[in-house]
Structures are given as structure tokens and as C-alpha cells.
């Protein structure tokens, strides 16, 4: 039986001028088979979709300046710009409401409510330094329509499945979009050691060889 294998695929720097599906086809088509899963880094998908903004382009509101102060310092919403970027897409009052409810829920021992109520971008936004140059000076949103993107990737590459993953060196691995029939939780576990590498290693694609057999077996 074929063993599972994780293969990082280097690319050139991708920008908002690129189409993510075309690029995946260019770099991965000859390396991927019908039993394999293609995994793409969340931030790279977002960048190719133009889901980025520079802090200098944002106009801060009072609420963003205040609310960011209550987010732990290492969080992407801890700067007023990360918070403003969120408010711009999810709505200022929605974020404010989520924050108030989240704070009350926390008092009663329930965490994560803010991230659930604040809209899907609440947990997906990466503040500056979150990705490779030249996008290290940008706030990067989560990808738009991730489930549609993975569906297109699977169709174009003829592989077993496709995922968009948010993985970092701090052992955080989360699936943002996954094709039907592919076990996202198992893939998240396989990617926990961040095979995408650090920001400057330019390996936004990871192919998981023989995943269909692995999924069927376990």
C-alpha cells in the first residue's frame, strides 16, 4: 500500500495579478495524481484574490482604536488597523456587538464567542508581518469563497481533493475550505508541522500524496 507523503511545491511570489487555479495547475499538475490532495496556503489564495489592504489606506474610527486595546497583543486584531480592516468588511456595529457579547460570554467562562459572532473574517485576518514580502506590509484578509476555489482546484487538477489551509509555526492548523468527501480534520492534523515553511520559503502549495488510501484506512 502506498505511503502518505507530504510534498511542498515552491513557486514564484504570487500576487493579485495571478489566478490561483491557473497557478496551481502550472506548478502542481504534473506532480499530483487521482489519490492526492492539493493544499494551498490561505494567505496566498487571499493575495491572488486581491484581499489585501495597507494600514496607510485605512481610516481609523474611534471604536477600532478602543476595541483593539482589549485583544491580546499577539492577535491580528490587536492593532487598530487589523480591527478597522475587520470592521470595514464585517460592519462596525456587528463587530462591536460581537465584542460586547464575547466579553460577557468570557466572564461566564465561554471563549471564542467574539470570533463566532464577528463574521468569518474575524479569525482569518492576518495583520502586517503575517506573510511574505512584499505583503508583509499589508493586512491580508481571509480568502473569498474558499469552498468554490477548492472545488475549481479539484476539477482542474483531477485530484482526490483540495483544501485551503491556515497553518503557522505555532502548531496552529485550520482548514478554511475543503472539497466534499475530503476529511479536513485529518488534513489539518497532517499539516500541523507547517510544511508550507516560513513566510520567505515560497512554498504555498503542499501535495499530500496517497491521501485517499490514508483516509479510507483510518
Amino acid at each position: 500500500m502506498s505511503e502518505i507523503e507530504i510534498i511542498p511545491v515552491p513557486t514564484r511570489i504570487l500576487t493579485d495579478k495571478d489566478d490561483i487555479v491557473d497557478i496551481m495547475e502550472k506548478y502542481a499538475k504534473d506532480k499530483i495524481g487521482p489519490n492526492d490532495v492539493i493544499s494551498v496556503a490561505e494567505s496566498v489564495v487571499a493575495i491572488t484574490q486581491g484581499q489585501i489592504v495597507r494600514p496607510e489606506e485605512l481610516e481609523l474610527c474611534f471604536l477600532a482604536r478602543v476595541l483593539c486595546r482589549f485583544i491580546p497583543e499577539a492577535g491580528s486584531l490587536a492593532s487598530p488597523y487589523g480591527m478597522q480592516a475587520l470592521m470595514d468588511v464585517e460592519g462596525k456595529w456587528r463587530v462591536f456587538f460581537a465584542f460586547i457579547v464575547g466579553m460577557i460570554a468570557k466572564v461566564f467562562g465561554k471563549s471564542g464567542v467574539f470570533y463566532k459572532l464577528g463574521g468569518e473574517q474575524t479569525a482569518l485576518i492576518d495583520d502586517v508581518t503575517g506573510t511574505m514580502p512584499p505583503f508583509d506590509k499589508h493586512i491580508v484578509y481571509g480568502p473569498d469563497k474558499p469552498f468554490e476555489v477548492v472545488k475549481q482546484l479539484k476539477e482542474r487538477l483531477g485530484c482526490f481533493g483540495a483544501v485551503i489551509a491556515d497553518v503557522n509555526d505555532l502548531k496552529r492548523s485550520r482548514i478554511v475550505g475543503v472539497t466534499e468527501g475530503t476529511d479536513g480534520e485529518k488534513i489539518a492534523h497532517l499539516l500541523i508541522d507547517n510544511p508550507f515553511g516560513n513566510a520567505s520559503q515560497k512554498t504555498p502549495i503542499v501535495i499530500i500524496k496517497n491521501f485517499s488510501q490514508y483516509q479510507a484506512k483510518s
Partner: protein
Amino acid sequence: MGILYGLIGLVILIIIVCWAYIVNKGNAHFELKVAERTPFELVEIQEDSITLNCQVAMVNKGEQLGTIMDCYTRHLLPYEQFDGVQVFSKVELETARREDDYFEALIIERNRRVNLVVTVKLTARKNSDIKSTLAQMVDMPIDIVYQQVTRADWHIEKARIEMKASEVASVANVTLAD
């Protein structure tokens, strides 16, 4: 009426608590330790040019982490003062030297310091002899400019180091003209 006063009092109390929390948590506060910079050292000397560098520490003295978005040098040597050399200067992170002069945005945690390397290249403009040119060299200020993003609005600050003519002369092994 009593309820209204109670509500107003509650709102004021919440504002005071939030304000006290924010003040207590503080912010990042960056400082370039220009007074503690290392002396300029020789990197390379050629017939027509000399390259020197020194190190300057950037410290986050605040209570929160912060981000240096960008950092660059601005050397100040107008030809009215001395037109013998063409100056190139750049600043890099000591632990992440780059050939492309790009300064990658960097998070500095509280009470942490990072070392910046300031590199200066002087090329003789009027002849191909850097050593004879440097005999006329003058003190040259170099501003280190940095853009920061913290819990407050982004802004740009700068601090100044001075490359002394005597330092350059000593490194190049030349004697300054009177």
C-alpha cells in the same frame, strides 16, 4: 429620574474602567539607542570607494509588542558642504541581512532589542582615489527613519547618528587635512 441618573453613572463608570484598563496595559515604545552605536568598521576598501558599517540597537521599552513596518536611512551630505564623494547608505536587521535593501516588517516584543546594521558606501566623484578624497571628508549625519504600528496610529520617527570624519579617516588610514 433616579434610573436615568443610575444609567448615566453606569456609563461613566464603564468609560472610566475601560480608560483605566487601556492606560494600565500601555503601548509599545521604540527607541533607537543612537548614543550607544558601535564605531564604524571597515567592510571593504577599493581604489575608488570605501564601505563601512556600524550597529545601532532598537529597543522596545513599552509594555506591549509593536511592529516596525519599515526602516531606512537618510544620509545628509550636501555638495555645498563636501562634493568629493557619492554616498550610498542602508539599514538592515543584523539577523536578516538582505542584498535587496528591503526591510521586512518586524515584530519586537516588549523589553526586547534588535540590532540594526547601518552600511555606508562612499565613492570618489572627482577622481578614482578614495584615500586622497577622504582627507577632505566632513562629519556626516545619518537619520535612521522608521515607521511603526502599535496599538495607536501608525507614525514615522527618526533618530540621528553621525559618521565622524575622524572615524572614517581612521578606518581608511588617512590623515584629515586641516
